């Protein structure tokens, strides 16, 4: 039998613990393929977050460090400044990056740290069980806003790419999605570019990946992809927010 698309070398051959329909597995693979294609696996150090992707330190086949909730960009900063010859990435969810770790996110971008951040936005807290995230949509139900997100009580969702685009230090910001095969292919390009930028010494690169969490939303994997298409895209338009070819902001709605 001919294997035409084997497991990337940058992924360890172990069983992942992610739920059926979860986007982490796909996102991991995109990161691993980018590492393989750029030939940087051996000199890459990854930072695993707190949340479902905490176990990614077992999955990525490179040196890994697991850090405190939200502190990925600070840890990546310490690693990169100490080992500028290495490629350093931080893999984070929305609670990690946009809630408890927003300070580290903004300041690592403002400093223009030459690191890569993979930001998984699935509009919920995965590991703790479906609480409201900073990216939970208006009206969306969560275990800590059971009647749906109400602006009077819960405020509004945070658009990370739009926010970071204000910072001179941010070099490349793109929002992509995993809800169709075509979007996965686009997401792959963005992830690879975010790593290529670091190899080229261009500075802070962040890819926001709209992803699925069917378990905590109480819906099927298919319905979860539909949730991205029907609901999330309206709140979180896809596109390049910083560092587009030609220097223009390039935001499309699909």
């Amino acid at each position, binding site marked *: 039998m001919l294997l035409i698309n084997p497991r990337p070398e940058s992924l*360890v051959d172990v069983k992942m613990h992610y739920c059926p329909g979860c986007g982490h597995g796909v996102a991991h693979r995109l990161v691993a393929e980018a590492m393989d294609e750029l030939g940087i*696996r*051996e*000199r890459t*150090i990854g*930072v*695993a977050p707190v949340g479902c992707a*905490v176990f990614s*330190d*077992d999955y*990525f*086949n*490179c*040196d*890994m*460090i*697991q*850090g*405190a909730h939200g*502190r990925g960009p*600070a*840890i*990546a*900063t*310490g*690693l*990169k*400044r*100490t*080992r500028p*010859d*290495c490629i350093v990435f931080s893999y984070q969810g929305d609670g990690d990056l946009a809630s408890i770790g927003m*300070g*580290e996110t*903004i*300041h690592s971008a403002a400093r223009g740290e030459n690191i890569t951040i993979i930001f998984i936005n699935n509009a919920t807290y995965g590991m703790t069980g479906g609480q409201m995230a900073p990216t939970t949509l208006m009206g969306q139900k969560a275990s800590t806003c059971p009647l749906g997100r109400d602006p009077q009580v819960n405020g509004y969702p945070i658009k990370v790419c739009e926010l970071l685009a204000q910072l001179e230090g941010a070099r490349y910001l793109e929002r992509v999605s995993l809800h169709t095969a075509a979007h996965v292919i686009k997401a792959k390009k963005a992830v690879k570019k975010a790593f290529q930028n670091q190899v080229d010494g261009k500075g802070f690169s962040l890819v926001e990946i709209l992803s699925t969490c069917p378990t905590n939303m109480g819906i099927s994997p298919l319905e979860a992809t539909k949730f991205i298409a029907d609901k999330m895209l309206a709140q979180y338009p896809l596109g390049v927010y910083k560092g587009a070819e030609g220097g223009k902001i390039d935001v499309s709605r699909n």
Partner: protein
Amino acid sequence: MSEKLLMKGNEAFAEGTVRAGCRFFAGYPITPQNEVPEYMSWRLPEVGGSFIQAESEVAAINMLYGAAATGIRTMTSSSSPGISLKQEGISYCAGADLPIFYANVARGGPGLGNIAGAQGDYFQSVRGGGHGDYRVFVMAPDSVSEMGNFPLHCYEVAEKYRVPAMILADGILGQMMEPLEFKFETVDPKSLKTPPWALGDCTGRKKRIVRSYDLSEGALEIMTLNRAKRYKEIEEKEVLFEARSCEDAELILVAYGTSARASTAALKMARAQGLKVGLLRPITLWPFPKKKIQELAAKTSSFLVVEMSLGQLVDDVRLAVDGRVPVHLHARPSGAVPTGEEIFAQIQEELKAQKGEYVCY
């Protein structure tokens, strides 16, 4: 070895860490330790190291977590409220067996408190400080010379046992100027071996993971018990103290850092009057000189603990003495500094009471 220098405690400490091989600093401004980041901001680039003014103490300690994971000597410094913010990160370093090093140039608390030197962070320092079961190797300098010369020992102990190490100083030690000599050969970091757990380029070896967690059943207990073996070894081998005039003492003062200096003045006054008084100065606060205190408790009639806190060090002394003799307390919390005279006055009271001249209060 080096020439005699006149430096502030904070600067001596910063220079001492660089000479001990530190090549990474991240910190956030807070009085009374600001001279440390200011000094490191020009000194580290001079020797090819990295300095980062972090956006917060929380970010600073996590930058250290990342940098230390590559196996180099790192340092962060702060003062009491900032050290509280760093505790989560310190706990992660302890759990991941990273030998980080930091200084608390302590000030008066709780809360925002004041910016005077104080010793109210004793419990936080010697009982771990953050969440979970762990210990930190704690050295307490009492002079600018020790501020400059202790960092090397902290690095060596931290690396040998893979534990965080710290210096517990205070605003007075940080701000005062004294002559000092660096009593060690400057360390070239290139001469240090890269530890076998360090992250970096994994060409030709298996991937490495630095982490403080293990969710599989029973695994974390084993991890913690293994670490506890190292703690036990530290308690057996790494205790440092200074005992002055304790041989014939009927009352022994116990004090560290700045309060040990005030106690030294009181000791001199007492001895000048022929009173049999001694002074035990713990240099390591953890491990604590428990055995020495037990040994002294068999010979002396009482202890007087002098501390710039409400009564924290006294707990460790009482645990060691275990009720054999009375342990008295002279406590000046939240930025107050005891004078030699006031300590001497209490020494006289305690000795009178000891001889039955009146009942001990």
